[in-house]
C-alpha cells in the first residue's frame, strides 16, 4: 500500500479561505514522515485529509490505487477502523472506560474484543502500563494517558499511524518516551508513521520531513 495525494485543496468558511493549496505527494509503505511548519501552515489539516477524517475541497487521496472518495461511507469507516490509527495532541480517552477498555474500543466495533484482549495487555505491558489496566483516565498521569492513546491506536494493528503533535501536551521525558515508541513501531513493525510536529528535534527523528508554509509544500 502507498498513500498518494493529488493536487489536494481545502478551503473553509465563506468567503472560502484556502488552507491547503494544491498539495501533491506520495508516501511509501513503512516510511516515517514528519510534517512541520508554522502555526496555521495547514499541518494538521493535511494530516486529517490524509487520514480520511476530513474531505478535501478538491483533489484526491489515494490508498494503494483506490481513491477514498470512491468508497462508501461504510467502507471508509471500516478502512479507518482497520488500517488507520490516530494519536492526537490530547489523549482523548473515554473517561467512563478504564485503561484496558479504552485500548479495546476500536475492537468493540468489529466484535473482536476477545481476540484482541491479549494483544491489548501485551501493548500495555510494553508501554509500562501493566499495573494501570483497571484504572480510569482520571487516575493516571498525562504521559500514561498518551501511552494508552497510542496503545488504542495500535490495537487493530493498522498500516498507518497518524499522530497530530503527540508530544504537544507532554513534558520532555514523556515526550521522549512517546517518540521512542513511534520510532520503534516504524523500525520494528514497518508501520507507516505520519506525524505533525513543530518541534525540530522530533521532526528530525523521521526519515522524511515535509515542510508546509501557507498551505503548500516548501
Amino acid at each position: 500500500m502507498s498513500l498518494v495525494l493529488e493536487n489536494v485543496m481545502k478551503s473553509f468558511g465563506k468567503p472560502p479561505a484556502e488552507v491547503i493549496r494544491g498539495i501533491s505527494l506520495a508516501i511509501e509503505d513503512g516510511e516515517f514522515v514528519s510534517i512541520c511548519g508554522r502555526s496555521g501552515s495547514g499541518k494538521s489539516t493535511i494530516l486529517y485529509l490524509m487520514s480520511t477524517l476530513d474531505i478535501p475541497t478538491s483533489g484526491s487521496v489515494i490508498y494503494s490505487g483506490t481513491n477514498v472518495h470512491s468508497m462508501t461511507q461504510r467502507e471508509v469507516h471500516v478502512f479507518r477502523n482497520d488500517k488507520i490509527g490516530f494519536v492526537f495532541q490530547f489523549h482523548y480517552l473515554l473517561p467512563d472506560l478504564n485503561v484496558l477498555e479504552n485500548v479495546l474500543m476500536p475492537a468493540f466495533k468489529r466484535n473482536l474484543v476477545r481476540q484482541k484482549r491479549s494483544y491489548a495487555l501485551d501493548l500495555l505491558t510494553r508501554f509500562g502500563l501493566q499495573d494501570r489496566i483497571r484504572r480510569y483516565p482520571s487516575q493516571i498521569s498525562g504521559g500514561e494517558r498518551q501511552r494508552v492513546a497510542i496503545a488504542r491506536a495500535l490495537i487493530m494493528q493498522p498500516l498507518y499511524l497518524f499522530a497530530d503533535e503527540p508530544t504537544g501536551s507532554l513534558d520532555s521525558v514523556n515526550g521522549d518516551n512517546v517518540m521512542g515508541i513511534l520510532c520503534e513501531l516504524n523500525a520494528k513493525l514497518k508501520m507507516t508513521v505520519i506525524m505533525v510536529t513543530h518541534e525540530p528535534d522530533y521532526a528530525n527523528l523521521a526519515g522524511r520531513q515535509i515542510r508546509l508554509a501557507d498551505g503548500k509544500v516548501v
Partner: protein
Amino acid sequence: MWFLAIRYILARKRQTFLILLGVILGTIAYISISGIMSGFQSYIIEHLVNNDAHIRVTPGERFVIERSLEQTDYPEAAHVFWTTPPSGGYFNPRISSPQRWFHFLEKEEDVAAFTPQLIRDVSLKRTGISKPARLIGTDILKQTKVTSIENFMIDGHFEELGKGKNRLILGAGLLKKLGANPDDAVFIINKQNESFPFQIAGVFRTGVSGIDDNNAFTALADAQLVQHASNEISDIAIRLKDPAKARDRASRWGLLFSEKVQSWDQINANLLAIFNLQHLIGALMIAAVLAITGFGIYNTLFMLISNKRQEIAILRSLGYDSREIGRLFLFQGLFFGLIGGLLGCVLGYVTCRYVQTIPMESLRVAQYGRLIISFSPVIYAKGFLVALFSCVTASTLPAMAAGRLAPMEVIRNE
C-alpha cells in the same frame, strides 16, 4: 454500542435514577389508572350484559313529520306548505303481535333465550311509606335464562316467585327505602290507584343502583292482573349466545318488525360514551406524565451530547460511523424504556394488589367492599410499550444530532 451505552448510564447514577424513577412512576400511573378504570368499566358492562337482556324489544315509536302527512292527506299535491308544521308522535304501550316475535325468536340460531315482560311504573307502599318502583312482570323460568339475576339474589331464590300468587322480588335498595324485610307484605298501587297485596319472596343486589333502587320482579300473570292488561306484554328481553353480536342483530331485526329493537350497548349508549371520555382523560393524563419523562430523557441526552462532543469525535476517528454513534444514544433511551417499563409493570402490579386490599365500603361498585381492578395482560403490555415508545422517541432526536456531529468540527475547535 450497548456496552458503551450502559457505561454512560452507570457513570451518571443520579440522572439515571431520576429518569428511571420518572419512567417507572409513569408506567405505574398508567397501569393503576387503566386497571381501576378498566376493572370498573368491565364490572359495569358485565352487569349491564348479564343483568339485562342483550337485546330488548319495545313497542314501536312513530313520530309525525311533514312528509308522512303529505303522503297520506295530500297524495296529489305537488307542494304542501304548512302554516304550523305537524308534530308529535304515537307511542304504543304494548307489543302488538308478540306471537310473531316468539315464532321468529324460536327459530333464530343466535338466540339463547328470551322472555316476555310487562314493565310498568307503580308505587310500592308499606306502613305509610310509599316509593315509586318499576314493576317487571316476567316469565320466571325464562327470566333466569335471559339474565343472571339468580346469581345476585342475596335472599331467597328467583324461582320462588312461581311458588304462589302475588309474590315479589325486590332490589336491595328498594327494600331498604321501604324499610321492609324479606317475607313482609307490601302493596302495589297501580295508575288507577288500586292496591294489590304482595309478599316479598326474595331480594337481589346487582351493585348497579339504577337497578337495585327501582326494580321489582313478579310473575307475568300477576303483573298483567295488577295492570288490567291480560295477555299484554310491553317488552321482550332476549339473550344471545354471543353478546358481541347484539348490535348487529338488533339493527337487522329492527328492519323486519315495527317494534323498536335495541342492543344493550345502544340502550346504555350514554354510559358507554362516559367510558370513552374516561379513556380519553386517562390517556391524556398518562400522555402528560410520559411526555414529562420523555422531556427529561431528551434534555439529559442533549446535555450529554454537548458534554461528550470530544468523545463522539474520537469514536468517529476510531471508525465508528454516524449510525453507530446515533445508536449509542438510542440504546440509552431503549435502556430506560426497557428497565423503567419492566419495573413499572412489576410495581404497578404490586400497587394494584395493594389498592385492592383497601376497604372501600362506601363505593357502590366495589365488590365485597374492595375496588375492582383489572389485571388484564393487555394493560401491562400497553404500559410497557407506552414507556418504551416514549423513551425511544425522546432519545431519537438527540441520537440523530449525535450522529450528525462532524468529528473535524470538534477537533478543530479544541
